[in-house]
């Protein structure tokens, strides 16, 4: 029972982290119809900038400044890169962001090298918040949960209650009408792109100390983020939230409970074959849940795409 609670918290942390990335990505998608392949790269940039700033000014200034810098870079990418490629169509846009992801990874290696950076949890938060049956929960995890929830509520408030949010929502659905009403739609797009990448930057700042700041960090999380928004339904903020939490919990639980495939198969009445070593299906029999924890999201995505192509909360197919 206690273990379940610990796993719930761990899964929540992973899920909310995923959500901070997928929220920006799904906003950008519903706005421009393009999936930003480089989104996780902005997350990585956030972590690296925060590390560099934290050396000079401390963690808190890093938390404040790094997302701002990332957001400005993101807006610049939209203004000078994506807008230029936009005229060629969606596929070149996707290819552009893909190339950008490659380039940012190389750039990070160029500046900071290939090793992991010693970016660590600030001392103020480096203590055990509480412990459940001997499993200590670090305060930084609680801090991560609060930051993510605060951002989610803030985002929801801005999008649904303020005038700016209303204009953004209108611009998502009817950009031409909004433009005719006198709003600068390209500027809105640039702003949303900047805010989306800044959100990824925040995620990078607070995930860097826990998951490690190294050049492969974008790649590790990148494809999972895409899976998340496909499962949640492209363009749906609530879908992104639900899918993030789902993936967070599924992977955490699969990793902590060692369920063997042979037990499941025996449980439903299929006996283990006599000479397992020679059987072609021996790998299927010896699979355990921690082994497949990382590919569960992909399996889930393929299933979703087969049975509900629009995703859990999606309204349209493309």
């Amino acid at each position: 029972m206690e273990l379940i609670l610990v796993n719930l918290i761990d899964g929540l942390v992973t899920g909310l982290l995923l959500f901070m990335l997928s929220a920006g990505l799904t906003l950008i998608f519903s706005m421009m119809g393009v999936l930003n392949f480089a989104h996780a790269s902005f997350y990585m940039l956030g972590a690296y900038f925060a590390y560099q700033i934290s050396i000079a000014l401390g963690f808190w200034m890093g938390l404040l400044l790094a997302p701002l810098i990332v957001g400005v870079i993101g807006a610049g990418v939209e203004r000078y890169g994506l807008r230029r490629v936009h005229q060629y169509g969606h596929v070149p846009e996707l290819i552009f962001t893909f190339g950008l992801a490659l380039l940012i990874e190389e750039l990070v290696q160029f500046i900071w090298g290939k090793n992991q950076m010693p970016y660590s949890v600030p001392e103020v938060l480096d203590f055990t918040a509480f412990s459940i049956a001997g499993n200590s929960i670090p305060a930084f995890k609680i801090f991560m949960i609060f930051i993510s929830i605060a951002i989610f509520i803030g985002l929801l408030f801005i999008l649904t209650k303020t005038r700016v949010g209303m204009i953004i929502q209108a611009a998502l659905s009817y950009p031409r009408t909004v433009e005719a009403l006198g709003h600068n739609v390209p500027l809105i797009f640039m702003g949303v792109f900047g805010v989306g990448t800044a959100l990824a930057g925040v995620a990078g700042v607070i995930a860097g100390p826990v998951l490690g700041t190294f050049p492969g960090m974008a790649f590790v999380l990148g494809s999972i983020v895409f899976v998340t928004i496909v499962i949640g339904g492209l363009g749906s903020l609530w879908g992104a939230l639900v899918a993030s939490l789902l993936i967070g919990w599924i992977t955490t639980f699969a990793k902590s409970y060692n369920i063997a495939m042979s037990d499941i198969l025996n449980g439903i009445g299929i006996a283990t074959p006599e000479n397992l070593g020679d059987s072609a299906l021996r790998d299927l029999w010896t699979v355990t849940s921690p082994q497949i924890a990382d590919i569960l999201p992909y399996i889930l995505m393929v299933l979703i795409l087969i049975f509900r192509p629009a995703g859990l909360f999606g309204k349209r197919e493309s």
Partner: protein
Amino acid sequence: MTDQITTDPTKPAQRMRAGSMTITIGPWIVAAIALMAMPYIFTSNSALTIMNQMWITVVFALAYNMLLGQGGMLSFGHAVYAGVGGFACMHIMNMSDLFAAMPLPVLPIFGGLFGMGLAMIVGAFSTRSAGTVFAMISLGVGELIAACSVIIVAFFGGEEGISGDRTYAMPFFGNEFLQQIDVYYLTSFWVLVSAVLMYLWSRTPVGRMANAVRDNPERAEFLGYSARWVRFYSFVASGFFAGVAGGLFAINYEILTEENLNTASSGVILLVTFLGGVGFFFGPIIGAIAFTLLQTVLSLQTELWAFYAGTLFVATVMFFPGGLAGLLMMHVPAFKLGKANLLVVPYIKTLIPAAIGVFGLCALVEMVFHFRHAATGDDEMTVFWMTFDSHTIMPWIIAVVVTAVGFGIMRMTAPAMKEAWNAANTAGGKS
């Protein structure tokens, strides 16, 4: 009314349709002779290795372009089909009874069939829509299969992959493929056959419909074609040729690992194809040759070759979406007007300073990299065959000046080049 129905064979569009299955034989004969003559020109073993790698990439890139260029489907997981084809070939190699009764040149067909089989399974649900959704599914499936490779050890061999020995095959006219040169000719044969087949495929009605569906799926549907099935056929055919490329890889390297399946390999093939140009059939061929050369030659010279390749890729997407082939084909109208000679001098005036500027910039990049990452005390560095101390100010000034002067002259002469370009592409006037 009859005027509208009669086809006029002098009109280009109808001429093409009338002779759609016949191809100009000229370029293919040239290609075949070039393939045969290459080992006599580049005799060293390393050149053979590079050429083998190049031709395999050519097959794979052409297969990829069947999707991206001709079908308008962007796949982020195409390495999977080549990889699975390769793994299947490797397993056939290890089945000694079967393999001993099979000549080696037949093996890539089996790779193709397995690639095709997988493409049929995945295509059944992924080709429902093109664009972003297709790209996402391809990425997900690619990741899934790549991740499976460490779990399903029986087929993928886990971390260390699986290896085999091609020489156990039935001797093919007495040849056991012990030498690299034998493999070269086998690969060349398959490159030519696959390229011809893929070219013919692009001329068949289904190949033409793939173009139509790429450009306007709705209209294609109104014509009575199911966009989905047209995509499915392209996807399956592309899977077949990707599998052939995988089979060639298995024969050439005799080992396949997880690396053949993962997203990085899929990304590389996208890069190769786009660099070469997706708009023309021969684009991926140029891309594969250029990229393999870049990879093998540049990676010997600098650690930063991936950085340069990435920059080149992003620049291509932003400024030349037609790729290298598009750049070449841009000059066809000027040649047809007989005014290409107008371009020579302005090109020299602009492009040579630009190249000098780029070299200066590269030198700066290398110096920054050396300054930041070299071990302490190791101040000596070599850029463009010049050795100097990167911790003194002089080389920096020289590099900055070279860069600035190069790009400065380029900026000055660029308007003249643009004018010459316009003049060369305008009919009439003096030539």
